[in-house]
């Protein structure tokens, strides 16, 4: 809070524009975790798409292979590429199933080279990237969970207050987001309800879901922790959930980037690097 905002202080000579108020918004563990995750999730997504290319079909249940019915598949006909959901087939020639690489060569892997690590088909290398960064993701998440629970980040910043749970409050926040009307002044120093819910959902929902469905695909882990198979309904169900949850994380990323751009990208990115966030001034007549 700037002194000038307080009613107890006699008004100082009013400058043309009030000095910008800066708040310490992101503590160091949050900033480190954020940027480590930015790299980790990109590597995991792209190497994961490489692994998917080895068998671009998804099933529900304990087993699933080429003779079995896939609920989702990316494939190629003699001259097209397609994505199939259940019985619905969508042509995706040029992007998925059939595409042309940087050397002008036509390929029929599911995801194109620009989206995978490495660029050309190499399952062993894709797995090495994926299974190494899985440790970075898991260790980072575990440490961040402990720090945010014990260090007060959850209690202070992510905890949803009783008033915020009211449907009216949530609806108002949705409307504000839809109108691109972002909080200003003191309100911008805190997370709004939609932010809180999405951060909680990612930290305590999607990321653990990714890790545990990933572990369920390991035959060694299934022997060590057989409950994984019961939890997700089988190895192939876990693989399907892993794939779906990966795209939910991509969706989170897209909305996250959009919000950063709309809310003031320089201020937002600077605060995630140095920690200090400049509060956008109150709108005229709303203070």
């Amino acid at each position, binding site marked *: 809070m700037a002194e000038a905002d307080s009613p107890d202080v006699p008004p100082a000579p009013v400058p043309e524009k009030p000095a910008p108020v800066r708040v310490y918004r992101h503590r160091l563990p949050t900033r480190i975790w954020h940027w480590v995750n930015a790299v980790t999730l990109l590597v995991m997504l792209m190497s994961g798409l490489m692994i998917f290319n080895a068998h671009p079909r998804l099933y529900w249940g304990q087993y699933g292979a080429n003779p079995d019915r896939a609920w989702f598949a990316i494939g190629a006909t003699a001259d097209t590429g397609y994505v199939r959901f259940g019985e619905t087939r969508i042509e995706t020639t040029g992007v998925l199933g059939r595409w042309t690489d940087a050397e002008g060569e036509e390929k029929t892997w599911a995801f194109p080279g620009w989206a995978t690590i490495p660029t*050309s088909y190499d399952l062993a290398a894709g797995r*090495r990237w994926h299974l190494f960064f899985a440790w970075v993701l898991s260790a980072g998440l575990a440490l961040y969970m402990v720090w945010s629970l014990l260090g007060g980040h959850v209690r202070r910043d992510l905890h949803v207050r009783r008033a915020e749970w009211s449907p009216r409050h949530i609806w108002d926040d949705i409307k504000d987001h839809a109108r691109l009307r972002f909080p200003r002044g003191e309100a911008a120093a805190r997370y709004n309800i939609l932010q809180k819910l999405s951060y909680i959902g990612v930290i305590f929902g999607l990321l653990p879901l990714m890790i545990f469905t990933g572990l369920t695909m390991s035959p060694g882990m299934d022997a060590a922790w057989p409950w994984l198979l019961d939890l997700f309904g089988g190895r192939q169900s876990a693989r399907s959930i892993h794939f779906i949850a990966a795209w939910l994380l991509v969706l989170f990323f897209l909305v996250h980037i959009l919000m950063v751009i709309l809310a003031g990208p320089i201020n937002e990115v600077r605060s995630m690097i140095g920690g200090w966030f400049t509060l956008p001034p109150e709108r005229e007549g709303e203070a």
Partner: protein
Amino acid sequence: MSGVLLPRRQLIARAGGLVAAAGALPLLSGCDAISEAPAVRKILSMGEEMNRASQRALMDRDALAREFTRADLSPVFRSNGTKLPDGAAYAAHAATRFADWRIAVSGLVARPLSLSMADIRAMPQRTQITRHDCVEGWSAIGEWTGPQLRRILEAAGVKDRARYIVFRCADRIDDALYYESCDMVDALHPQTILAWAMNGAVLPIANGAPLRLRIERQLGYKHAKYLTGIEAVASLDHIGAGKGGFWEDRIDYEWYAGI
């Protein structure tokens, strides 16, 4: 056992070509260049050792892979890798229903053995319905019958110096006969069996007749088919190119395939 494989040289050439055409795709070719750098490969490979060490720490030495019921069997059990070994010798064995097939047990053992299929079937048998997981991502459930590997190793008297068991196969892929290996923990595991029957019938040729390995806590490429020999060794350095398996030596699959 992967279906479609590009030779490593071709992959490197392709990565190189992309680096040359880096104008449009600097990030991607950068990734490939990073991916090929020896130091990076070394760091990333730490993941395999971390996975092996942590899985061994988390799981009981004899923790069992889930066993299913006949109702859970895959309607069609997909075969992969070699579906019919080349050569007149194998064809002749197949024509006589493998009556003269022999499995040599050699290396660091007190009593080298040469077992016939009748010997294998005369041993105490284990039947298990388990899930087969390919490194590519698919799974199939099948029922397998055969003696536990540990009984064969006990009969041969494996010496204390032996740290790995190497599996020799009759199927040639490109330049070499297939081979695989595992450590003594997996070799002595109760579900590690030499299966001669699948789904209640004699093992089909496409699935490894007359005898294949089942090593249930690891991925499919470890489950060597068309077994001709079992060898106890102290080190994998002199097996193939030293990484312990056909695909490990050729396209860098991890030797520990528990994940």
